[in-house]
């Protein structure tokens, strides 16, 4: 592909990342081919006519390569200059979706563009948000130690996330939490991470345990805490109030917040998926949301069908895999959405543990390489942006693979550079190549 002579465009472009990028895209095309393979089709014909997904993906990647070259040719100052503007445009596009939007798979987040292709603004908005956050944090007047800065950044991230939720794109919305990496790196107090982690544990515990049992455990914990630090509390009575406050918040979360979220915020299928992750059944009759807005997105098959078939596909691969094009789960189309969100299963089935291990190794190497790139930036803008990219990639990879192997509830987010889809491939290409362009000018201090 055309990216081989990138050196001519700008000195210092990271060739290792480009190589990894090309390998990943190639693996992606191969995986999509495996999913679609059918011995009765004439493959050379379908490549030319672009009637199959894998051939479309080839055209997408050619297009993306062109975009990548275009980005590498740009001046790196463009990104800082247009960061705020692009964010504003992205939010506008997302709002426009509510008017122009087209319903695909129950998610009204697509804008139809020419040639039968559709654009998903929420997808592109990730890039713009990354640029915007980088711009905001790198501004000299921003002191990212202050709570105020945290709140502004948080709001900037939350806005597209909320819009995504309104478009029934839970997965895309969750991706925005990936910015926590960048924010943490730039000075977000670790307490927030700990609090968030505790909250996650509390939510899972709420799902797993009976409310009364959990309440008793919380009370015992609080009592134990007070008892063990009784001397300190004697000196400072205010601290004991803090413990009580925390106990109260926890109790409130367990009794009211979590049930409220599951019954009123999440839709029935989402609650069911989350409950099924911890091996429990969710009673949909409690769900007020799907009762009011019924018929929006209801799976026909039982909700754990995807995960079950996905685990069968990966598990049946065994150590060495069933062989290229020999996976029966893939050939029989047992895994729904296998070419997009469940693409990892075709790899796991065909090449087994050996294949998945090597594949994960590639991804890990890729992420660590990006972190290395991030750390070598002189400019804060570039570093924040790089960590945003790391966060977004990592979040996609971790959540996507975790959901296919049954470690995470099913949320519809693609596997970066592998899953079928032009929007997704383009987003990751742009994200990555902007980073490479910035990295090429890593000695410059961008504002």
């Amino acid at each position, binding site marked *: 592909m055309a990216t081989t002579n990138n050196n001519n465009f700008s000195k210092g472009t990271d060739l290792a990342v480009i190589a990894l990028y090309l390998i990943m895209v190639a693996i992606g095309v191969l995986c999509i081919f495996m999913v679609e393979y059918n011995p009765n089709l004439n493959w050379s014909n379908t490549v030319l006519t672009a009637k199959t997904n894998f051939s479309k993906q080839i055209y997408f990647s050619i297009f993306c390569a062109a975009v990548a070259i275009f980005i590498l040719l740009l001046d790196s100052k463009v990104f800082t200059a247009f960061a705020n503007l692009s964010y504003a445009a992205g939010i506008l596009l997302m709002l426009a979706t509510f008017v122009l939007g087209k319903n695909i798979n129950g998610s009204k987040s697509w804008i139809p563009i020419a040639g039968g292709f559709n654009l998903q603004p929420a997808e592109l908005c990730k890039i713009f948000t990354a640029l915007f956050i980088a711009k905001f944090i790198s501004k000299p007047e921003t002191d990212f130690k202050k709570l105020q800065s945290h709140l502004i950044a948080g709001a900037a991230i939350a806005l597209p996330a909320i819009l995504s939720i309104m478009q029934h794109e839970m997965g895309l919305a969750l991706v925005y939490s990936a910015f926590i990496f960048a924010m943490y790196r730039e000075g977000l107090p670790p307490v927030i991470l700990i609090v968030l982690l505790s909250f996650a544990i509390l939510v899972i515990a709420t799902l797993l345990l009976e409310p009364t049992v959990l309440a008793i455990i919380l009370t015992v914990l609080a009592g134990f805490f007070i008892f063990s630090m009784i001397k300190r509390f004697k000196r400072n009575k205010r601290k004991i109030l803090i413990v009580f406050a925390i106990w109260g918040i926890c109790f409130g979360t367990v009794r009211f917040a979590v049930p409220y979220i599951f019954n009123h915020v999440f839709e029935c299928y989402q609650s069911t998926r989350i409950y099924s992750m911890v091996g429990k059944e969710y009673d949909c009759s409690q769900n007020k949301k799907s009762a009011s807005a019924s018929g929006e997105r209801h799976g026909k098959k039982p909700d754990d069908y995807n995960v079950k078939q996905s685990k069968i596909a990966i598990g049946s691969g065994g150590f060495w895999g069933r062989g290229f094009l020999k996976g029966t789960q893939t050939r029989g189309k047992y895994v729904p959405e296998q070419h997009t969100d469940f693409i990892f299963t075709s790899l796991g089935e065909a090449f087994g543990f050996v294949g998945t291990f090597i594949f994960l190794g590639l991804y890990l190497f890729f992420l660590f390489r990006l972190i290395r790139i991030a750390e070598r930036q002189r400019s804060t803008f570039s570093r924040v942006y790089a960590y945003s990219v790391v966060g977004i990639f990592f979040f996609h990879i971790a959540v996507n693979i975790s959901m296919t192997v049954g*470690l995470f509830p099913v949320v519809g987010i693609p596997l970066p550079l592998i899953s079928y889809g032009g929007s997704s491939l383009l987003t990751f290409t742009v994200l990555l190549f902007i980073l490479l362009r910035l990295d090429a000018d890593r000695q410059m201090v961008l504002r």
Partner: protein
Amino acid sequence: MYNSNRGRIIQIIIGIVFSLIILQLVSLQIFSSKYVLAANNNAIFRHIIYPDRGIIFDRKKRALLENTISYDLVVIPNEAKGVDTATLCAILKIDKEEYTKRMIEVIVKNSRVKLGIFEPFLSTEVYAQITENLYRLPGFSLSERSIRNYPYNTAAHVLGYVAEVDVKFLEKHEAEGYEMGDYAGMTGLEKQYESVLMGQRGVKRFLRDNKGKIQGPFEKGQFDTVAIAGRNLYTSMDVEVQQLAEKLLQHKIGSVVALNPKTGSVIAMASSPGYNPNLLTGNQRRKTIGRLLTDTARPIYNRAIKGQYPPGSTFKPMGALIALDEGLITPSFGYNCFGLYTSCGDPRKCEHHNAGHAANLQLALANSCNSYFLQVFRMAIDNPKYHNAKLGYLKWKEYVNSFGLGRRLGIDLPSENRASIPDTAQYNKDFGGAKYWNSCFMLTLGIGQDRMTATPLQLANAMAFIANEGYYYTPHFVDSVEEEDDIDKEVLAKYRTKQAVTKIPKEYFDIIKEGMHGVTVFGTAAAVKVPGHEFCAKTGTAQNPHGKNHSLFVCFAPKDDPKIAVAVVVENAGFGATWAGPIAGLVMEKYLNDSLTKESKTKMDYLANVDLMPANIKEWYIKNNKTEMLVPLNYNNDELSDIWDMEMVSEQAPVKLKLDTLKKIDTFQKNKPPAAPTPSKQNNKESAINPVQKKKK
């Protein structure tokens, strides 16, 4: 740099998450084997190709059974949309409700996307109508299946039947690869030679997608196996003789067994009541099986190998043979019988009063003198050579067993009965110890009564033994298997070796044969003739606890070069010479001459229509409202006449009989002594000590 250690922390977090994923992959891909199974269950569809079962031929290479194609109407419920139900219901003669009911049944059994049987075993007309209208029935199709067909409507007991295997069968034959829905031989030769007849099933594996649609062969068919057709069996049976035997047994309970003494091959084996084997195939089966199972006359029961009958006087030649070989008597040995046997105290009655009817062995056999053979039996048991009655009895029993009585012969049919030649232990128990009994206690064993029983097959085999003068071949149906392999050879080896080669000298056999020849010339069976052949025979009229005497007849022919040995039993019919004798005569005639004389045909018609069903069985039918069972499920006379090219036998046949034939039959019966009333509830043990035995011949 500021906060740069946080980059490291982020790396650690990423590393932990990846490790978790890899751990999960290890558990999924390396430590759980269930996923491969689950994937195969999902995607691999095994299609079993049933080979044609082997065919069984008679001695003239006529197929006793063959395979025909039957069609099932099958349906994929999901594709059955816009079906012209009115037409379909009209063809199948069902209503709309039934249609819906069956559709639901199919869905419940096989799901909506798989083929399910809507109507099995279509008749020819229905098949034709369905094929014409198939375009109106989307989702429906016709599926072939091979079923058995019996072109001669005969030999149901011998051939047995195939049926769908049940859970029990699957447990028993676990290693043989049967599956639910398979058919296997359940009785008769079909069961005995199942492994030969079934062939080898082929398995084709297909890839099936998530909608149950076939995608193509799995792994290019490299795991597929080819179906290998079952191999054929060649027997020495004769379809025409078999049909004749079955026809002659109509309206009677009994059995006919005909053997080729030279090889031990079975020529014909009939058991009555029987049934037309075609009634247990295809859609007939459901209607028939219930009736067959509930019938008190037990039409499924093969009396030829399972029926235990006291052999009565048919045992006498064997008794004489023992005495001759032991040197106890000479052919000229005579016994002065005046109609009673009194040596054991209580007098035993004998029917013959004329002096000299037992003046020598030949006369005694021909006239079937009871006293003579009671005496001969006592001599054998009390033989001074063996010191006491027990040892004498054991020797006698050894002889009898060597003739093939009282033990399983090992015919190639399942569940043969060994019948009974009693053990000394039984008498020790009866009489309180070995010391307390002597030859007088089981006296009537000498005339084939007491506790002695034999199957018709054993009796026929004993005739083969005498005909061969000292040996027999284990009776069997199958002479050879198509493309015999080592296993088949091993199975058939025992049918190809001589059994019971005794050291009894030929001249003793000659004497017995002369005696048995006498039976047919001037003795009890003088009225039974086989045109063109001299033959040897012995009649028997056996007392039994179930009612009237059993009519028995054993024989072989021709006298000097025996080609056929026959045993006939007609239950509760009376004299051996009256019923069993003529039946055996016709069977021999048919086999030896290949056709019956006109006179014989008349006799056949008469015999075939004589109703000798015991009264208690008829009463049972009436009492249980099953009078329809009075009409036997037997044979298609059309077929019989087609083959024989003779006049069809109508129901009025006996009336149509020519007057002179009737007269002949009349005199034929009058020549015999009149039937004496027999006690109906009397068991064998009682008869042994019953003071006055009513034996006649």
